[in-house]
């Protein structure tokens, strides 16, 4: 059995997936990925998506889902996920009126607890995909930790995004350890350079222009992250790259990422 499965977040090739989902999935399969994480189903019916995955031999383990979509259409999304075979839904909280620190956060938290409970009954684990704003302080701790503690253990797990953890000045390895047993999916995301608001680490050169990079090709300590993920019981390492490097084709970066991971021995 494999130590850990390798996945690809389709946001990284959003244009290609929107134009031709089957073709994008086929390329990802050919590159050697075991599965994909969706961000919605690109306008396709769940049964069509499932048919594509089955034909290609890919697993659709998860989908990212913005909070408002999940709030408005929880049962349709759950139904779709059960058809596609997604075992996880990773919620995104982006609305400035709802994120931690805003007065709307408490009610968003209540809704998330509700959604997580319903998803659990449907056999789906709700994950929370954080950004940088969940690292602000909320009642004496980073808001992400507040959420994970306030929601009954097991109902909500973090989908740790190594880029945003580091952007906030925290150590991805420490975060993975902290949520050992609750981080089935880890987002590997590499980069170089300084971006507004980011916390820099010792030895990092602020003058380098910011750019997302294929996994293993940037400033992240990817080997340490992989080892921490395996030790913490992660099931999937998901490659996510918000934008291709050098304006290149996302698929060539997707190739560089998986080649790095295969060479590492995964």
């Amino acid at each position, binding site marked *: 059995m494999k130590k850990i499965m390798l996945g690809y977040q389709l946001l990284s090739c959003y244009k290609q997936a929107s134009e031709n989902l089957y073709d994008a999935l086929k390329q990802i399969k050919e590159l050697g990925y075991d599965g994909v994480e969706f961000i919605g189903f690109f306008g396709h019916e769940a049964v069509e998506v499932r048919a594509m995955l089955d034909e290609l031999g890919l697993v659709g383990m998860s989908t990212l889902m913005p909070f408002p979509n999940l709030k408005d259409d929880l049962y349709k999304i759950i139904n779709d996920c059960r058809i596609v075979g997604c075992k996880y839904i990773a919620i995104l909280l982006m609305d400035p009126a709802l994120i931690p620190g805003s007065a709307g956060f408490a*009610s968003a938290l209540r809704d998330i607890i509700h959604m997580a409970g319903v998803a659990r009954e449907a056999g789906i684990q709700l994950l929370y995909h954080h950004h940088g704003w969940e690292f602000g302080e909320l009642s004496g701790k980073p808001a992400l930790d507040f959420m994970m503690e306030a929601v009954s253990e097991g109902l909500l797990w973090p989908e740790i995004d190594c880029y945003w953890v580091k952007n906030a000045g925290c150590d991805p390895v420490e975060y993975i350890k902290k949520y050992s047993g609750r981080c089935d999916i880890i987002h590997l995301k590499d980069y170089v350079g300084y971006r507004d608001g980011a916390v820099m680490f010792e030895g990092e050169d602020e003058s380098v222009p910011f750019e997302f990079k294929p996994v293993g090709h940037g400033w992240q300590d990817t080997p340490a992250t992989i080892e921490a993920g395996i030790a913490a019981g992660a099931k999937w390492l998901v490659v996510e790259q918000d934008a291709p490097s050098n304006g290149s084709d996302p698929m060539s970066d997707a190739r560089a990422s998986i080649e790095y991971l295969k060479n590492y021995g995964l």
Partner: protein
Amino acid sequence: MKKTMIGYQVYSARDDAAKDLLGTLKSLKAMGYDGVEFAGFYGIDPKVVKEYLDETGLVAISHHVPFAAMREDIFKVIYENKTIGCKYIAIPFLDDETRPGSAGFAETLKDIYRFGKLIKEAGMQLLYHNHDFEFCKVSDQYGLDFMYDAVPECILQTEIDCCWVKYAGEDPAEYVRKYAGRCDLVHLKDYVGRKEAGKNPYALIGVDKDTASADEGVAFEFRPVGYGCQDIPSIIKAGQESGAEWFIVEQDLSIGRTPLEAAKMSVEYVRGVLANN
């Protein structure tokens, strides 16, 4: 219209209750209270407490159970309250390691959720009884509102303590209206004096550590309902229009008269207001 009931928080006459619970309950019934809210049973078996209630004809409304006791054994808490027939169980207070603004607050919320669900499943309702320390800001709103927003109505209802709301600088009647439909129980509590920097009113009632001595707190004094600075008729009106079923008289400390004398003044005043509403 449904009759509005008047209750008494037995904590207000805790020394009397500890000496003679049955006698105290009889006195309260004779004064005209419809029911009582407990804050512990003074070592008496809940089955015996139930017999006392049946004997006096008082309703067991609710019970203030320390949060730590719920954490220790929520099932025991539920069993005891089912035994005396309470419809409500209230978290009366949160210490400085569990309240909004503290690092323990996230876990407090998780437990409130769990306890509230278990209590609901047992056919009762969890309430949160506020002080003034929940009026600190958490994620850009009062910690108290954060709790009520983060936990659904069916799992957690308010038990608005009018004294502490006003003491914190907010209007109790408005607060009751804000939680219309979620305020079955309203705590009527009157006082004189104002909030002073460095003074902690809980030091007066011995539930919180504080460096200020009781002597320094003289500016603040609890009063029988209707004898202090609160606009009680407006609070009662707000409660009645917001679905309150019980107005519960509470007076943490009685100065210059016995707690039961104060209890009588309070119930007579509240009856008078209800008769005029």
